[in-house]
């Protein structure tokens, strides 16, 4: 459960074939309003029409054989859906100042969802949830015969697995004690019909972008202690087609472009240090201009060299400011994941917030909403936007916490005791069963002060607590949110850039090796005030239903108390020989420095 676009990149060195980073998340985003129509009223594009025909045929045939012998154990499905992601992508990657690969791809993948039983109890119950989905690659052309044959193949095997799981679910239901949460397995929703034009193929001038990506990577030659870097551009156009036996028919386009940089260094004591940054836009031409990117890359390179030399942190328990960006990551991890609907039921879940509805869970000056319908924040594009979720439900803005009071959860079509229907947050990567997930998590505050004021408050708070300094978290990276019962209710985000802000007026001091510890709820309740400007974090978030693009928006926050310890990461020495780029820069070859 980490909001990072870099999970895939970390494993780069060593892998020969690295998959397309641009995942096939069935994400949707478009501005055109969708009018409620019935499927009969609109002309369906050939792919959707074939899906629709084959779906109807399957529903009217499966488990309805006239042969009494053949139908002995065959039960007709009560729900069937086809969700096809038709995605075209381009990815360009450079490292060490040269191109490492440059590829394009086009594929169509179908997720067939089969449900047997009834909405109260079906084949997806409990630990059988994954049995809902069966995935297959589809032909790229509109050859109806090939398409319907592939859909048949996927439906047939999906039905087989659903049937097997349904029979086991029924047996298990008979032998186990009554569950705490007796909600059904599938909510009742209105079918949606909305046919939009397919997303245009991404327009990327490959030669130009290869040059740009390459020269951005080359910037790190100015920082020889940054011994590894990866710069990657991905551009993706995706059209998602959805047809269900309830009558939903959707064609929904989405485009995204992302530039990711990941750079690594190591301190002399072996501590691994890294920085990452992402730039997102709807299309590549809207990404920041080259000079702006170059400046950001230089800043990143410099910050790593500074970090190498920064002193090690000491264990600390006192006040701290999280920058807007750091707060956004913090809220996504600590709060967002725990507000996912499915985490409120099931014996395995910690259910931190299950019984907290209508109770104060945050300071009353804070509100939190998730709004996938919003495409930008200020001038920043939000990557967690979509039109319809991956269960074909219309995206909605959901007020999760109002004035500190918990109001609802992020709901897919999996009902829970307190909420029985979807609020358009059923999201998944292709090949996974959708779960309640975040889209654009937006934190707002009514107790905001200027940055200068917030800093003053930090120093006052530190003085009050008798601390020589408070902490300022400028950048935080992925951690993991553990929400299951048998693990402690802790979180572990990785602070990347942390300063000590001294009470005696000394200049701020960069420290390294800071790691946050403590319990999430407690940490959130200790927010004293916020800044008056919000920052956006765009990233990829991985969880049970796969990796999906998300955004989080939050202002800086002052916490009265945060507990940190020394991070135990990495024991290897830095490279023994000097970076070849530094050797080349010097007129004569330098001797090994590390002996």
């Amino acid at each position, binding site marked *: 459960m980490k909001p990072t676009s870099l999970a895939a990149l970390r494993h780069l060195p060593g892998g020969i074939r690295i998959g397309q980073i641009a995942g096939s998340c069935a994400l949707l985003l478009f501005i055109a309003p969708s009018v409620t129509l019935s499927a009969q009223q609109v002309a369906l594009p050939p792919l959707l029409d074939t899906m629709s025909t084959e779906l109807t045929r399957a529903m009217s045939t499966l488990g309805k*054989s006239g042969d009494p012998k053949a139908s002995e154990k065959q039960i007709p499905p009560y729900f069937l859906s086809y969700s096809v992601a038709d995605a075209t992508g381009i990815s360009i990657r450079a*490292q060490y100042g040269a191109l490492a690969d440059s590829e394009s*791809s086009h594929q169509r993948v179908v997720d067939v969802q089969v449900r047997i039983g009834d909405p109260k109890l079906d084949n997806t119950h409990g630990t059988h949830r994954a049995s809902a989905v069966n995935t297959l690659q589809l032909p790229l*052309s509109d050859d109806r*015969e*090939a398409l319907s044959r592939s859909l048949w193949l996927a439906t047939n095997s999906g039905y*087989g697995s659903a049937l097997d799981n349904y029979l086991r679910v029924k047996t298990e239901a008979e032998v186990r004690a009554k569950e705490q949460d007796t909600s059904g397995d599938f909510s009742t929703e209105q079918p949606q019909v909305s046919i939009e034009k397919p997303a245009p193929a991404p327009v990327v001038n490959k030669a130009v972008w290869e040059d740009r990506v390459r020269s951005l990577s080359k910037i790190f030659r100015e920082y020889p202690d940054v011994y*590894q870097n990866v710069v990657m551009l991905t551009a993706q156009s995706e059209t998602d087609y959805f047809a269900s036996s309830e009558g939903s028919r959707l064609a929904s386009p989405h485009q995204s472009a992302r530039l990711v940089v990941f750079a690594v260094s190591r301190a002399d004591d072996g501590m691994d240090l890294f920085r990452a940054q992402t730039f997102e836009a709807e299309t590549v031409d809207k990404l920041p201009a080259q000079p702006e990117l170059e400046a950001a890359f230089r800043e990143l390179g410099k910050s790593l060299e500074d970090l190498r030399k920064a002193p090690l942190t000491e264990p600390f328990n006192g006040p701290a400011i999280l920058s807007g960006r750091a707060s956004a990551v913090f809220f996504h991890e600590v709060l967002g994941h725990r507000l996912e609907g499915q985490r409120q039921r099931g014996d395995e879940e910690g259910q931190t917030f299950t019984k907290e509805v209508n109770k104060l869970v945050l300071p009353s000056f804070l509100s939190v909403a998730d709004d996938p319908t919003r495409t930008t924040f200020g001038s920043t594009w939000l990557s967690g936007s979509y039109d319809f979720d991956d269960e074909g439900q219309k995206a909605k803005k959901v007020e999760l916490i109002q004035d500190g009071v918990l109001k609802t959860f992020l709901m897919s079509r999996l009902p829970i005791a307190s909420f029985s229907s979807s609020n358009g947050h059923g999201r998944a990567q292709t090949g996974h069963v959708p779960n309640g997930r975040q889209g654009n998590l937006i934190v707002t505050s009514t107790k905001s002060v200027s940055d200068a004021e917030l800093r003053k408050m930090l120093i006052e708070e530190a003085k009050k607590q008798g601390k020589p300094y408070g902490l300022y978290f400028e950048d935080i990276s992925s951690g993991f949110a553990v929400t299951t019962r048998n693990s402690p209710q802790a979180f572990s985000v990785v602070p990347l850039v942390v300063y000590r802000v001294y009470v005696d007026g000394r200049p701020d001091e960069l420290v390294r090796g800071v790691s946050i510890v403590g319990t999430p709820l407690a940490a959130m309740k200790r927010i004293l005030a916020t800044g008056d400007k919000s920052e956006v974090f765009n990233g990829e978030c991985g969880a049970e239903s796969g990796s999906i693009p998300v955004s989080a928006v939050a202002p800086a926050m002052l916490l009265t108390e945060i507990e940190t310890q020394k991070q135990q990461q990495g024991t290897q020495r830095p490279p023994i020989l000097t970076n*070849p780029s530094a050797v080349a820069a010097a007129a004569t070859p330098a001797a090994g420095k590390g002996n």
Partner: protein
Amino acid sequence: MKKLATPFAALALATFSLSAIAQQTRADAEKDPVLKAMLAELDRSRDQLQLKDFEKPFFIQYRIEDVADFQTKGDFGASVGEDQHHQRVARVTVRVGDYKTDSSTVRGDGAVQLTALDNDPLALRASLWQATDQAYKNALSAYAQKLAQLKQVQTPPQSDDFSRESPVIALEDPVTLNVDGSQWSKRVAELSGLYRTDPALKATEADVQYATAIFHGRAVNSYLVNTEGTIVRKGTTSFEESFAVGTQAADGMHLDRSYGSNGETIKDLDSSEAFTKHAVKLIASLTDLRKAPLVEEEYHGPILFSSDASSDIIHEIVAPNIVATRPELGTEARTKGAFASSYHARVLPEFLSVVDDPALTTFKGKTLVGAYKVDDEGVLAQTVNLVTAGRLENYLIGREPVRDFPKSNGHGRAAIAGAAHPAIGVLKVSSTDGIDDSELNKRLLALAKDRDLKSVYFVETLGPELTPRLLYHVDADGKRELVRGATLDDLDQRTLRSGVVAAGKEPYVANYDGAVPETILAPAMLFDDVTVRRANEKNDKLPFYPPPS
């Protein structure tokens, strides 16, 4: 007692090929920007890489593989897409210690990094620098561990850890991948839809559960340099077209057929007409297989394997066992595998001999994918007489010696980005008194008569794990009937040693285009006692509903 069994013939050949290409020099190599960058970083590492108070490496090797791939796939008559990849991968090996005892372990050591596609010397060197640093640190800790382990065992290692080899400078021309992608996409789409379009196949249309055709082209340029002075550049291309189709019999048994055509150039592949003919035959065979009766429950007796099926048997049972790999520390074993103690012993009938000859590039006009000139450790390929008149007289070996085999015979082979291990190149099985197919068939029937058997079996093709795909029940007067659902038992080293009663004349060319390309040339073989058994595997259900019409 130690006895050196050096294959003199092979050595002579090696010397000959060496002199043939020995005029190339490091200066020639440095005209190549990739080799130039590799040599520059190698020199720096050799001269400077050392952690204080620890040993310097005694051997460093850099390998870069530049791999360009194109693949396109068709399902049910339509393209599901093309994949195009081009990457360079660097693999660095660092050895600490000395030739006698070094840091190497059984896992295959080294570090791997993705490296620059651009011929940018600094970028190429940066990834080599990173991998070298990692490999050296790993080697230091592996070496310390090795020294500690050596103190734990009574029996010392039976051979050195690493062989000394003469440096080789061999520069082949680089290759590029030239493929008309859209034409191949169209071709595989059409192939995968043959069951829809070919009038002769109309009857099978409803039964086809999958029909897939794939075309794959690959060009690999590999660059190798080491601190002993070896510099090698190799360029290889390979192309493969394959087709697979399957259905289920009425009892649910899965019936699968596949066919592939491969070679070094596109011209080596079957023509479109020839390939289509094969594919049509395969689809039509499904109808026969669906109708074919189940094999009898158990049979022990003579079976004739076609040259195609025999090649698979050799690939499965002989190929993995005639390689010499370092045995467990502390044992007196020579090598590992089924032939570990078979040196000079009989492993095949006296009329069979086995040679591995990587220099054999074609056979009767067919290119052999297992051929190569220099192996992936920079050692010149040698022809190795492995089995002579049934006796095992040699092993295939790379640079990690075993008892009595102190030198590589040029069979250290590596998958892309992988460590080198000994493997076959072009393995040729021949019989001193081979007979033709009709004669073999007569011998089969004669055996049946001798043993008073009403029927015997003929295996035409084998699938994975030596499971028959086309198996014929042969009655006393030679009439063949296709049967299905069989597995074979007792196909092992013992049966090969004493159960083969005759072999064919003409070898089949079996190209295995796997991670390490291999070729087997083997004739048909008649076994006098093999078991055929009904597989009795769990059959899946038939489709729950019919396919769209």
